[in-house]
């Protein structure tokens, strides 16, 4: 029953945010956010705080769809359809993409691993806590490094800078064992 109440609150939160979006009203948006937070408290009360937080974060991803479908419009058919563009399979392009794969999947894996462990080693927790921090931090850092690398034009510089930071983490790991 409490879960149902929390679900209704979550739905009301999405409906309120949707209404605020339609009417461009900030106050309604804040009310929507408050309702969402309250739904989180009620979910936590019903399912425990861990599941409460999880459901509160993820449920709007499903509940939003009736509102999205209510806003759908149909566009007219275009008069012209463009000719397909050929894909670039030139040797330079293939080599460049191959190199990017290697950097993204292997080089940044090693770099992110050592930086993560370096940061974890400096945290004031026990081994289990440090490893816990590492578990969360590693994919996030790896993902962010990949973003930085792909978004920048000076790729070699970025790769070198992160490699140096990862290298500096090695003595940290030796001096401050996990």
């Amino acid at each position, binding site marked *: 029953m409490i879960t149902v109440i929390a679900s209704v609150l979550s739905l009301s939160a999405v409906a309120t945010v949707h209404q605020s*979006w339609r009417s461009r009203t900030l106050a309604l948006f804040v009310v929507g956010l408050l309702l969402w937070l309250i739904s989180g408290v009620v979910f936590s009360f019903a399912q*425990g705080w861990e599941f409460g937080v999880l459901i509160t974060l993820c449920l709007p*991803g499903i509940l939003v769809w009736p509102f999205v479908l209510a806003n759908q419009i149909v566009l007219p058919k275009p008069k012209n359809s463009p000719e397909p563009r050929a894909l670039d399979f030139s040797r330079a392009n293939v080599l460049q993409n191959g190199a990017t794969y290697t950097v993204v999947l292997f080089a940044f894996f090693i770099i992110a691993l050592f930086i993560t462990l370096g940061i974890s080693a400096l945290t004031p927790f026990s081994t289990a806590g440090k*490893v816990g921090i590492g*578990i969360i931090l590693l994919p996030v850092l790896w993902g962010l490094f990949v973003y930085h690398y792909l978004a920048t034009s000076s790729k070699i510089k970025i790769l070198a800078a992160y490699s140096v930071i990862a290298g500096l983490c090695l003595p940290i790991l030796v001096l401050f064992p996990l």
Partner: protein
Amino acid sequence: MNKQTKQNALNAHTWVGVFLSVLLFLVCLSGTIAVFHLEFERWEQPHIEEMENVTPLAIEKAMNTFLAQNTEETNHLYVVFPTSDIPRLVVENDHSAFFADKQGNLIEKESVSFTEMLVDLHLYLNLPHSWGMILVSALGAIICTLVVTGIVAHKRITKDAFKLRRGGNGQQAQIDLHNRFGLWAAPFHFIIGVTGAYFGLASVILVVVATLNYDGDREAVINQIFTPDPVLEPQSGKPEIGKAFAQLATLAPEKSPIFLTVHEVGKPEQFIEIYAKAPNRMIYAEGYRFDTSGEFIGVAGYEYGEWGKQLAWSMYRLHFGDFAGLASKWFYFILGVMLTMLCVSGMEIWLSKKAHPPLATRLWYSVVWGSVSALAMTAVVDMFYAGSLVVIFWSLMVFNTVVTVFLHRLSKALWLMLSGLSVLLLLIAYIGVNGASSFTISSLQLNVPMLVYVVWSLRRGAVLLSRESNDLSAKSATKFSSAAVSE
């Protein structure tokens, strides 16, 4: 945020999304289906007796019979209780598993090869486990990249928050679907990315920490994160699993026993551990430990242990949505479908920006809908063949690719219909093989959703097919009239 930052984020998003699309799609699709991996195990042998609970006597009897029939050396013995997510009694060692009935009589050998292949595809992409695990974990990190870059790159994140523009040439609808899935379900995608990375990367962290700080002793690191084995007087004799199980009702009446393990079978360090699910807790289970004579020693301490230990022990339920029975699994399944659709729509946007290069477009559809078809056909083959399903699945994928290269008519509509027909064939074969058992709960809970998929894919395929033929006739009419004008 300035335009350049958004454009840079979009460039990063596009590269990662396009160049890792096939791997991301296969991991997301298999993961979405694997949310129901325990249900698939039941589905593979639907005639097995199911029960709500079991007596300690029945457990003892089942294990004794199993040990009498399976005398090979083993390090572990297991009993899976019907109070786990599979309402069946299973006794097993490191080599084989047998179902038992409510009285403890062995029924038949457990055979879940399709589920094993599906889970292996999700966890390792069917590659050698060490490499596969790292590659799949890398995709977890890549999902984190995609979430961040997707949000940064979105130029009209608030303006379009609830918009869906269908029609036109279909490109705007794909963009809107992609952005709505991406924005609203971002927390889920992030959780799946981080927890997905854990399964492979934890072992790498372990190796590095062991090498740098523990002279290569991995066991020492594991003991810091998970609870070490208890130190006992040298044990001998048959483990009293029934006696241990009987005590759980008083030790933890609020918890549901999942399974029991006898560790270090036949060795002086032998002990019994029963894993029981704690209500409203994310941790996989609390471990209740007993010596060989069934005397309670203590708990493993996951429920109220250190937060780092609890975190590591929570990853399974957080990743697979296995915490509130079918309700949480359906919740994860729907969000998983959205994540899979995110991969599909992302690639379709890229293809439509290239005005759909014919071969690349056909190949993408063969991966997307062809993999659904290949999975269904693999399950069909599994009913009549005992060999490697990994070989079957990947042979079908290669076959799909080759056929797609040569058959120019294999459009999205046809692939969609083929996937629906493959699932229909699976259902027919399943009913043919399992007879009346095809209509038990363990079958219907998957067969009904599969039937819904068949109906949807055939209807949707028919709509797309008629659209394609309309477009084709409109194109040829335009060609004809422009030729007439030029004459």
